[in-house]
């Protein structure tokens, strides 16, 4: 799983049931600090769907869209376990590295 895919997954998890194109984009732009294009979101989304880490569901019709449904994304169990694996590796990798090591050298 690539980095952008991982971040998108995490964003979806944070959004807890309200994850669709626009919200995912806002969330990502929020915690990464730069604007994401839709293209940069859809591509990882499709890949994640192909891999089975994310599934699409249709919400109930919604008035703002003139009666159309929204397409909501959810992280699947496989997705969650994949994320967890990455997190574990991350922890083990960072283990022992002091925060102080990142302060500027004297």
């Amino acid at each position, binding site marked *: 799983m690539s980095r952008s895919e991982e971040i998108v997954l995490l964003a979806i998890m944070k959004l807890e049931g309200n994850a*669709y*194109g*626009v919200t995912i*984009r806002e969330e990502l732009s929020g915690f990464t600090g730069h604007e994401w*294009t*839709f*293209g*940069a979101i*859809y*591509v990882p989304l*499709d*890949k994640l769907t192909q891999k089975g880490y994310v599934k699409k569901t249709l919400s109930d019709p919604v008035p*703002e*869209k003139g009666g*159309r*449904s*929204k*397409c909501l994304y959810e992280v699947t169990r496989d997705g969650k376990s994949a994320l967890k694996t990455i997190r574990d590796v991350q922890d083990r990798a960072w283990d022992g590295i002091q925060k102080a090591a990142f302060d500027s050298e004297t």
Partner: protein
Amino acid sequence: MKKTPLYPPGFSRWILKHFFRKEDLLYRLDDFDEVYDELCQKKGISYAKRWYRLQVIKSIPQFLNFSLFRSFAMLKNYFLIVLRNSKKQKGYTFINISGLAIGMTCFILLSIYLKSELSYDAYHNNRDKIYRLVSKITFGDDVQTLYESMSPTGDLLSDNIPEILKFVRFGQVSRTQVSYNGSHFLEEKIFYSDNSVFDIFTFEFISGNPKTALSKPYTIVITENTAKKYFGNKTPIGERLIFNNDKEYTVTGIIKNVPQNSHFVFDMLGSFETLRSEDKESVEQWGRSWFPTYILSNRNINLKILESKIQPVIDKNFAETYKSMGGTFECFLQPLDRIYLYTPNNGVSRIVYIYIFSIIALFILLIACINFMNLSTARYSSRAREIGIRKVAGATRAKLIKQFLADSILFSLVSMILAIIIVKISSNQISLLIGYDLRTEYFNKFILIFGPIVLTLFVGICAGSYPAFFLSNFQPVKVFKGNIAAGASNHKLRNFLVITQFTISIALIFSTIIIFKQLKFLKHKELGFNKEHVMVLNVTDKNSWKSYPAFKNEILNNINIRSVSASSTVPGQTPSNNVYLPEGFPNNNTQQMSILYTDKDFFKTLDINLTDGRNFSENTEANVKSIIVNETAVKNFGWKNPLGKFIKDDKGLRTSNTNEWKSKNVIGVINDFFLAGLFNTINPLYIYNDPGEFEIILIRISPENISRTIDYLESKWNEIFPQKTFEYLFLDNIFNKQFINEDRIQKIFFYFTGLAIFIACLGLFGLASYTAEKKSKEIGIRKVMGASIKNIVFMLSWKFIKPVMVSALIVLPPAVYLAARWLTNFAYKTQIDVNSILFTFVLTILITFLAVGYQAVRASLTNPIKCIKSE
């Protein structure tokens, strides 16, 4: 609150639509719209529109990347499937690929051949403005088309017609010995030309001045290779080359080698002024000398218009002469780009063969593609079950089609790679075959890469479309029930395809047989003389002829030398023609005759018989008024008693007034023989004893000890002609040279036919095995019922022989007609007889039998129990 609809930029939106799959389309567009609306409200419409457009632009590369990625994954998938299936059916795969590879090889070779043939003379900068003068002379029924004009014609036309800027004449030099600093070489490609040649044609100068190189007599321009040959690394300009130990020529220019794709090629170009200085009248007077003449027009003028300006000038100036002799003279123009392809050579122009070979190569490719279609369909039918399952599992028709197409394109690609390899390997052999060095062909890099790709796709899609569309039509239920009507329903189509293949093959077989017959006929035709064991030596300078009698007397002492003679020309080379006034013809009715100058030993040397009268005397002076003619002359002139009849000629005179012509008398008649080769009818022949015109020594030697005789002759030659290289040819080789073209064509047809048959057989073979498999149950049951192997073989073969017979019936009538048309090009032709047709027929059936028979036999030998059990 209902928002007022604000419209996002339409064009960008439209672009977006193409990037999303159907299922995502609406939702994603909505995402864009949502943000757009928000931005419209917060930051205004123009900001929002800008944002929208920017988004789309930024997103495009990402989308593209992803679709490519997806397609790539799909491709890999297809590829693996194809690979797996190929392994499972190795036999079919091999047949398919080899057939297709051969077809593509033919196509590639054809392209190369066409490209080279069509590129002749294209390198000249003025190519649209250069024309060759063509003279058409008619005397009654006899029409002669000459690609030469009289010497002053060029001057006449360029003086009188403003559109004609320049002209150039080319005079050919017969074989010449050229020497420099002790090394001698016999050169055959020396021409004379006016200096204007460099203004008209494009020959790149390496050193020397094109404006003046050939303006003085005895100057010469040579090619790079020639310069190297004589001078090595020394500067050739200013050096002198010696011709025939006699004349000296100064080298005034070096040009780049004349490209291979030129209609005439030379090694040295001497100045035309040389000819003028040697014999002014011959060059400047009408009716004396003829040269190939080319003109340069001042712009891209219409051919007919230019010709219409030329004819009046011709009429005014010298057509009168012809009219007074009872004939007409017309002058036509041949554009440069038509010279190579459209000049008849032995009656046929090259363009005819280009068409023929193109058609054949395309046909072979067609056969290969048909094979492919046939075999693929058969193969897929046996995978019907797999297809059914796929469909049930949700494969759409589109997906299946894509898969089959990918399959065939992949096959096509492998075949193409194979074809390229084959072409590379065989390019040497093929160059020899067609007489043109293919390896020097420069190919535009673009074409080199693009061409094969296009061909691969084209073949893949064409050949694959039939199975793709046909098979994806299967209905799963029918498939599972084992009810695949595929076998029966496309039976007709498959038969049609086999018929097409064999039609082409039969046509080729028949053509090859006829070509073979015609050549054999020509080569074995009674020639009227004996061409075996006759050596031909060229003596090119007049001085050396003085030593000839001594040479002749000396070598006749050797028992291996049977006979020695000298003449102006030798059978197999085109003789000169002239007009004469034979007895019995009115003054303005001159007759054309071929000319042969020779001595009394000529007939003995070539085993030609005197049928009437006597031979020349030994003493040349006694023969001053004597001529010998051939039987055709006697027949054409209607002479009952030819001896003593006179023929008037203008030799030594310069008048076309036949009243002033002098007579000579016929003293003997010889049997007809093919002086001019087998592609021309035998002309009346005028034979005269004028040693001043001799150029060739003929020596009949005994068939034994040939190499010793040659050594002997060489030593004697070097004694008597010390300055000349001893070079000889055998008459039968010279004579057979006229068949070079036809030999080549025969070979090419032979190979083409072989290829076509091979491919068609491959196809049959594959089909037969498929049919055998399908019918294995039926065969098993029949065997059990008591059918013999012979019965079964027959049963299977008959299915295929029937379409082949239909092919034969379709193709033989037009093939016979076309062959007859081709034969009309020959003065002497063989007959198309029933034997040839029958042979073709039988051969085809035999081939079919062999191709099918193997499968049939194998099928009939399988244990019937095995077949029935498989149910």
